[in-house]
């Protein structure tokens, strides 16, 4: 018997040794895919911006596709690779006697940075002292991109799910598909007036047709730019108005790329347009997309699109604009060098992934929530209009809210706290979210102005970009959500790490991989 066991073990070990010779690169089962669209449009384009937008005193509504039934799990909002602070839990000291305990979980989006936690704790204390019905407690798990999601899963699986989760956007909620309470009946029971919100905004807050939150914070994207680097290069700042030109040229992706090359500088002071430019010793980059979550979130710079055939959701589609984006990005990284490689992005030069905050990035395409994560008072910065592609501006949108988990045992009390949160101007300003109602925005901007030191930020750009959301939204549903996102993220990382890719072949491979994943989606 002993010999048999040893023999069995030897056979397993022998198999493993043979396996050690296998390639580490995962093999994808090739499938025949009918390519629906032709090869990408080149970067060079002549575009005249036809539309003008005038800021009105109306609610500017992002037009997005309402989420249809969603499979579980998705990559969360990306965060830097700093050391991980421990979770923060408060117990509700100072609450009124007999008040209902409601726990608030933070970690699926913004809010878990250590300096944010101090503010949140103070806000919770203030709220608890202001009323006697609800005792709000905090549970903050630092969001590294996954561990906070794991923590919440463990809490749900263990039967001790928190009551309120937020701020959280579509992507975060998709990771817990079907786990959110419908707040419409809760609002009705509490006499909360939902009619003050634009119906389209309320639609934006629906997942699978269920209203899971109240519009709280909108995070449009803009081009954040470092004025000091522009001044050093003696270049004018990028446009602040839609339709405005830059140095006599329309403000397009091409114009922005040329500008970014001039703002990409090596150790000897040569910019990327100079023949003597040394790409191995770059000290400053012209452009970056700050904290991309996956390929979709980046490719929407060239316009929103669906990665699947709307008529047959098992079929992947590679839209022309996303193909064009992939080639543009790859050239930006490896040919024109104005976009940092993964190595540069993770280096000390670019603050280990928090690139714009390093002060060595001239322009960053970022959501407004990114104001959380750099020193707004110390840096000399402002915001500009997103450049257009093929005549169209796309400023991708995030819309965060607070949601109540279905497993919450105190949904009515949770809604009471939630309704206070979504209407609190301080919380709005703190998370850097544009209020869902226009009337609340001046106060929001006034609060933001107190945080930016001597900078004079043109917040009108942020409001203007609300008119150009990505449609469909880059966080909208797609089949086999977690795995499809995973495929996109792998593709993106490969682009930033591998200088020897054939982008046509890689885009084709991405299409095949997505097709495999969509075809395997649970029904």
């Amino acid at each position, binding site marked *: 018997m002993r010999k048999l*066991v*040893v023999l*069995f*073990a*030897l056979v*397993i*070990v022998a198999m*493993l*040794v043979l*396996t*050690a*010779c*296998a*390639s*580490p*690169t*995962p*093999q*994808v*089962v090739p499938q025949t895919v009918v390519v629906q669209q032709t090869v990408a449009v080149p970067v060079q384009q002549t575009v005249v911006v036809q539309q003008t937008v005038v800021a009105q005193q109306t609610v500017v509504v992002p037009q997005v596709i309402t989420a249809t039934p969603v499979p*579980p*799990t998705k990559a969360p909002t990306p965060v830097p*690779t700093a*050391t*991980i602070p421990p979770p923060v839990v408060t117990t509700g000291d100072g609450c009124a006697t007999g008040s209902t305990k409601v726990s608030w979980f933070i970690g699926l989006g913004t809010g878990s940075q250590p300096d944010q936690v101090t503010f949140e704790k103070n806000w919770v204390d203030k709220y608890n002292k202001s009323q006697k019905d609800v005792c709000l407690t905090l549970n903050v798990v630092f969001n590294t991109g*996954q561990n906070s*999601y*794991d923590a919440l*899963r463990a809490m*749900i*699986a*263990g*039967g001790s*799910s928190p009551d309120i989760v937020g701020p959280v956007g579509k992507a975060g909620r998709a*990771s*817990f*598909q*079907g*786990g959110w309470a419908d707040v419409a009946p809760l609002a009705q029971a509490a006499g909360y007036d939902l009619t003050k919100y634009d119906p389209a905004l309320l639609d934006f807050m629906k997942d699978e047709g269920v209203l899971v939150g109240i519009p709280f914070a909108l995070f449009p994207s803009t081009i954040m730019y470092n004025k000091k680097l522009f001044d050093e290069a003696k270049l004018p700042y990028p446009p602040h108005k839609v339709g405005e030109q830059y140095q006599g040229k329309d403000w397009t992706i091409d114009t922005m790329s040329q500008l970014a090359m001039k703002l990409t500088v090596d150790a000897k002071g040569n910019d990327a347009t100079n023949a003597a430019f040394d790409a*191995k010793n770059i000290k400053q980059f012209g452009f970056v997309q700050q904290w991309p979550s996956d390929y979709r979130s980046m490719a929407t710079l060239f316009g929103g699109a669906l990665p699947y055939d709307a008529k047959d959701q098992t079929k992947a589609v590679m839209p022309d604009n996303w193909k064009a984006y992939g080639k543009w990005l790859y050239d930006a990284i490896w040919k024109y060098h104005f976009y940092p*490689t*993964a*190595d*540069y992005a*993770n*280096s*000390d*030069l670019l603050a*280990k992934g928090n690139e714009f905050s390093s002060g060595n990035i001239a322009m960053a395409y970022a959501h407004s929530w990114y104001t959380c994560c750099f020193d707004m008072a110390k840096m000399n910065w402002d915001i500009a209009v997103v450049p257009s592609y093929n005549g169209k501006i796309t400023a991708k949108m995030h819309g965060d809210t607070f949601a109540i988990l279905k*497993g919450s045992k105190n949904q009515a009390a949770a809604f009471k706290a939630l309704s206070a949160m979504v209407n609190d101007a301080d919380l709005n300003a703190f998370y850097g979210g544009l209020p869902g109602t226009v009337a609340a925005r001046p106060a929001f901007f006034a609060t933001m102005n107190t945080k930016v030191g001597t900078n004079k930020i043109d917040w009108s750009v942020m409001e203007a970009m609300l008119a150009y959301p990505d449609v469909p939204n880059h966080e909208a549903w797609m089949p086999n959500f*977690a*795995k499809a996102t*995973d495929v996109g*993220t*792998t593709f993106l*990382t*490969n682009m930033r*790490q*591998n200088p020897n890719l054939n982008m046509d072949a890689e885009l084709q491979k991405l299409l095949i991989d997505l097709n495999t994943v969509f075809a395997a989606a649970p029904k």
Partner: protein
Amino acid sequence: MPNATTVSTPMLRTKPKISALRRREVIWGYAFLSPWVVGFFLFSLLPIAMTIFLTFTDYKGTTEFAPGNFNLVGLDNYARLLTDQYALPSMGVTLKFALIGIPLGLIIPLLFALLVNSKHLFGANFFRTFFFLPTVIPVVAGTIIFGGVLNTQTGWINLALKALGLDDPPRWFSDPFWAVPALNLLGIWAVGNAMLILLASLQGVPTELYEAATVDGANPLSKFWNITIPMISPVIFYNLTLGLIGSFQYFVPAMLIGGRNGDPQGSLLFFPLHFYRQAFVFSDMGYASVLALVIFVVTLSATGVMFFFAQRMVYYAGGD
């Protein structure tokens, strides 16, 4: 002839009576053992049993673990193991790491221990502390530090290599070829613990053996090979076992450096990371449990083989 009135009765075996004192001692013994037994049952045995149960279900981690939230699927998850395109490659990555890291994890601490044990070394205490210090740094912090040290652009290693004239140093964590060796480098940085254990065993080798060998004309290399190695072979075997088990469980640095996709290009997709992805990225707890069982079986088998060969290769001075 037996007496008709007598009946031969079989000799009854009775349990020897234990005294009350002995019984009390036994009860107290079990009582002191019970915390460990209860803990083992609750935190080891029961979770293992639940994991085995989960392998037969399609439980997803997004709902409460309660009846009604999952279905029994028989051997579907095991069948999936045979068609999983990432299972073999990820095991290959783990084995590649082990094949490089385990020998290094034995040779380098042994060399350090020999150095520190040398009577010719000035300031041995300083070196002992110096080599041990990286061990006290938490794994996460150490990995993040090393990520910076091995950064292609600004890392110290590449800056030093460039200063020495190497224009195109390795792209460490961005190159699939160098990614695993780079993690092995990280492992070497933290060999202080193994060094201390080997040092203690070196100091336990009887000096009269060396004296006798010297009298017989043995050179240092011969003494090292024929005396030192056999005498410290139990400790080498101990480190080898720990190294093997640690390699099959290797996860945190791979996750921190390569992300959950095992970048670059899957070269850091260790088997435990593959398990983690299934469990916590895709919430497929059923299949992830199968992968966990695979790790368990593979580690157990490899350890079993090692213990089999240990009988021939390890010298225990005190006997078996």
